[in-house]
């Protein structure tokens, strides 16, 4: 990536205006062959708009795009792909019910005439995956593989189009750490072949691990382009946010030692004894007290989400017992849990959390209305009051509460979900990866609100793959491995290293 060399891609003075918003103003971007270039910025900074301009989804209002020195004007993602710019999106947009091979060649089988040459297609698919160091059965349906593998297939698909530039839009947001490592090894391989890679992510650690240079965007403007080596984490975050931020958190370990101790005295709000379900988790013992945050750590697939599903009545346990507020309880549906004062922010915000087409107002009052039942209808005015209250309280950025929630940014959607539960006045909140895919400021606001409620007596079960977050936000930490709880300790007594040892199978 010698600076004297010509960039493989150059975007100059790109501006884009949507009705009511200046999404990009005069943004420059340079990408060299053989480098990984990260685009960082908070939600709404203009990262996705920039990518959409580059891939021809939106035309730019002003500015030029130069590909190897020649001006291009992609008119559609397909057009961009033909020019050698391929994109792998955050949500894998492949057909999961088709085979791996079909997914790689979908829309392109026709190039051999009318008939599909299945054998050749399979052989080529296997070859392309082997190039990414992935050796799997290409005739199996895509859905039988993990998200990480699906993402690799998406990459393989874009590579088979002879791409010179690969755009990875939040590729790691649903991956476990090991899967990220696999993805990164693929990225490094592609980089060594001279490909230019644009990497968009929220994960600061990952940026520092993989990126050569970083372009920071804020409010649709370019803050600057920096070699990764010349930036510290805290300066990067400061540039993204545009103001000095205190290291978010550090709350539980020091500040809350006192309430944490008081909580030890109280009777547990929720107590699971040997809770389990066939094909899910086994023998889970958990206690969460009022005013206490219990962290639940472990790798993706270790049984954290499955545990949450049992506690919230989504799945029914077939072994063990569950006590809520001191009473043995059988939760047969989420409504049962809600009526006992439990709320649950699920891991998959889009699929299990928001009701996209409905308005922000309706999304906020939905759980409260369910709790009240069909016939105790909240008046429109009351609904407005409730939603306005939480929009203000959580700082949800939205022109008005009637906007479909699907049009909000990830951070605002997560806040809407939190608002939904806060409106029900819960006694316990289960948060499954509440900070995934949202920006630093929103993360701090959300966790601030949750911990504030916790200080006032709410119980919290906090699930996250990021051990550092789990330790920071919780009083106690339970660690899961292979669908069992393997350890539990006070957050103050543990550091990331010891927890990772437990996760990796070392001694507790």
């Amino acid at each position, binding site marked *: 990536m010698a600076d004297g060399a010509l960039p493989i891609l150059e975007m100059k003075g790109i501006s884009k205006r*949507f*009705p*009511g918003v200046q999404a990009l103003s005069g943004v420059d971007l340079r990408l060299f062959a053989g480098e990984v270039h990260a685009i960082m910025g908070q939600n709404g900074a203009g990262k996705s708009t920039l990518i959409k301009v580059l891939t021809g989804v939106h035309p730019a209002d002003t500015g030029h795009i130069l590909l190897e020195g020649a001006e291009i004007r992609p008119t559609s993602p397909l057009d961009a792909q033909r020019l050698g710019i391929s994109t792998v999106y955050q949500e894998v947009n492949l057909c999961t019910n088709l085979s791996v091979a079909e997914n790689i060649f979908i829309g392109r089988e026709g190039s051999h005439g009318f008939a599909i040459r299945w054998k050749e297609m399979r052989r080529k698919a296997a070859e392309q995956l082997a190039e990414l160091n992935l050796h799997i059965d290409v005739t199996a349906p895509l859905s039988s593989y993990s998200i990480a593998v699906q993402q690799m297939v998406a990459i393989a698909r874009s590579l088979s189009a002879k791409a010179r530039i690969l755009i990875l839009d939040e590729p790691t947001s649903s991956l476990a750490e090991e899967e990220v490592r696999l993805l990164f090894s693929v990225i490094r391989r592609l980089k060594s072949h001279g490909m230019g890679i644009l990497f968009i992510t929220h994960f600061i650690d990952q940026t520092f691990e993989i990126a050569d240079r970083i372009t920071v965007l804020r409010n649709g403007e370019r803050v600057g382009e920096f070699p990764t080596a010349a930036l510290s984490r805290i300066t990067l975050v400061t540039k993204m946010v545009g103001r000095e931020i205190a290291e978010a958190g550090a709350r539980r370990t020091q500040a809350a030692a006192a309430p944490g101790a008081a909580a030890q005295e109280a009777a547990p709000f929720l107590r699971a004894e040997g809770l389990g379900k066939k094909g899910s988790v086994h023998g889970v013992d958990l206690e969460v007290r009022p005013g206490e945050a219990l962290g639940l750590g472990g790798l993706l697939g270790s049984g954290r989400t499955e545990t949450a599903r049992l506690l*919230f009545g*989504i799945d029914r346990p077939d072994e063990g017992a569950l006590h809520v507020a001191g009473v043995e309880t059988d939760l047969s*549906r*989420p*409504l049962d849990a*809600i*009526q006992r004062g439990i709320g*649950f922010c*699920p891991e998959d915000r889009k*699929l*299990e*959390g*928001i*009701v*996209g*087409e*409905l308005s922000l107002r*309706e999304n906020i009052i*939905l*759980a409260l*209305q*369910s*709790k*009240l*039942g*069909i*016939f*105790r*209808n*909240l008046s429109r005015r009351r609904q407005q009051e409730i939603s306005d209250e939480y929009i203000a309280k959580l700082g949800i950025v939205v022109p008005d509460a009637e906007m479909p929630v699907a049009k909000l940014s990830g951070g605002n959607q997560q806040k809407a979900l939190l608002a*939904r539960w806060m409106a029900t006045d819960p006694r316990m909140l289960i948060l499954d990866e509440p900070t995934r895919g949202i920006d630093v400021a929103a993360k701090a606001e959300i966790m601030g609100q949750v911990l504030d409620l916790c200080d006032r007596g709410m119980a919290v079960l906090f699930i996250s793959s990021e051990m550092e977050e789990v330790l920071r936000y919780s009083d106690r930490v339970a660690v899961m491995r292979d669908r069992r709880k393997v350890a539990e300790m006070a957050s103050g007594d543990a550091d990331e290293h010891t927890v990772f040892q437990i996760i990796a199978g070392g001694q507790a």
Partner: protein
Amino acid sequence: MNAGAGRPAEGGVAAAAQAMRAFTRRRIFWPLATLVLLLLFNLISNPHFFSITIRDGHLYGSLVDILNRAAPLMIISMGLTLVIATHGIDVSVGAVVAISAAVAATLIGGQLVISGGMQDVSRYPLPLVILAALAVAALCGMWNGLLVSYVGMQPIIATLILMVTGRGVAQLITSGQIITIYYSPFYFVGNGWVLGLPFSFFLVGAVLAAVLVLARRTALGLFIEAVGVNPVASRFAGVRARSITFWVYALCGFCAGIAGLIVSSNVKSADGNNAGLLFELDAILAVVLGGTSLAGGRFSVVGSLVGALVIQALTTTIYAAGVPPEVTLVVKALVVFAVSILQSDRVRNRLGALVGNEEVAR
């Protein structure tokens, strides 16, 4: 004085234009516009089209006729609207119409009793007949609801089962006969008059009121839309998605039952093979014309009513305009095609761009 009066008038015009623009964005606008256009077309080709005369204290005229004939379809469309809003479909409504008609006719009995003139004889009292027919129809709906919500079958397959077997059931009930109804009090359902208006108006009004109260005065409408958009997220938010789906299908069956009573009363017989034939398709069309998406979510009961009226007005117009019978279906298809195209956001954005409006932000 003049200058002073001019300003508010201009403001008024601007406000009216604003209101008009807001109105064109609403879901109900296109079906309503189609209906108005159809009626205008009739008015031009036949100046007497809108005239309503009073005979024997009853109102007669093409408009009354359209409303009256559309009644069964309107009632079915309302029930189906809720089903479609849950991202479901019910293709069995036509068969349920036949079943309801068969139950009513069988319970009345098909004998013509003549002793000193025609006698009105029914095997069972009329209220019982009506209750039984509606109950059987609601049971049919519950069967669909059971398959969809608790067994987890895809709605089109689940209701296809009843669509196919329903006509067989109807024939079983009538022992394979077309039962003629000679009991004149039953004629009132489809042919009676109250306050100078056809009784079916009041049936439509009652169903509309009941559905609107259920959907908008309780939280049912919100829950139905939530389930239609995202059943998993709705369940996680405490919505009893299964039981709501179940009852919505039951309600749809019940509506089809009412339509069955009107149809059998209209033609004074119950024909298991032909009563309500292809009603399901017209009803789906009415709902879609009314602006409710087959993908579920937002729904408009009034829109579906207008959709049903468009379909009936179209049929009446085609006959009135003297379109040769061999091309009527093509004309009908063209109009439906045009309305559907106009309702697509993509087409409307393109048209808007042609007119010079700013592109609607996605």
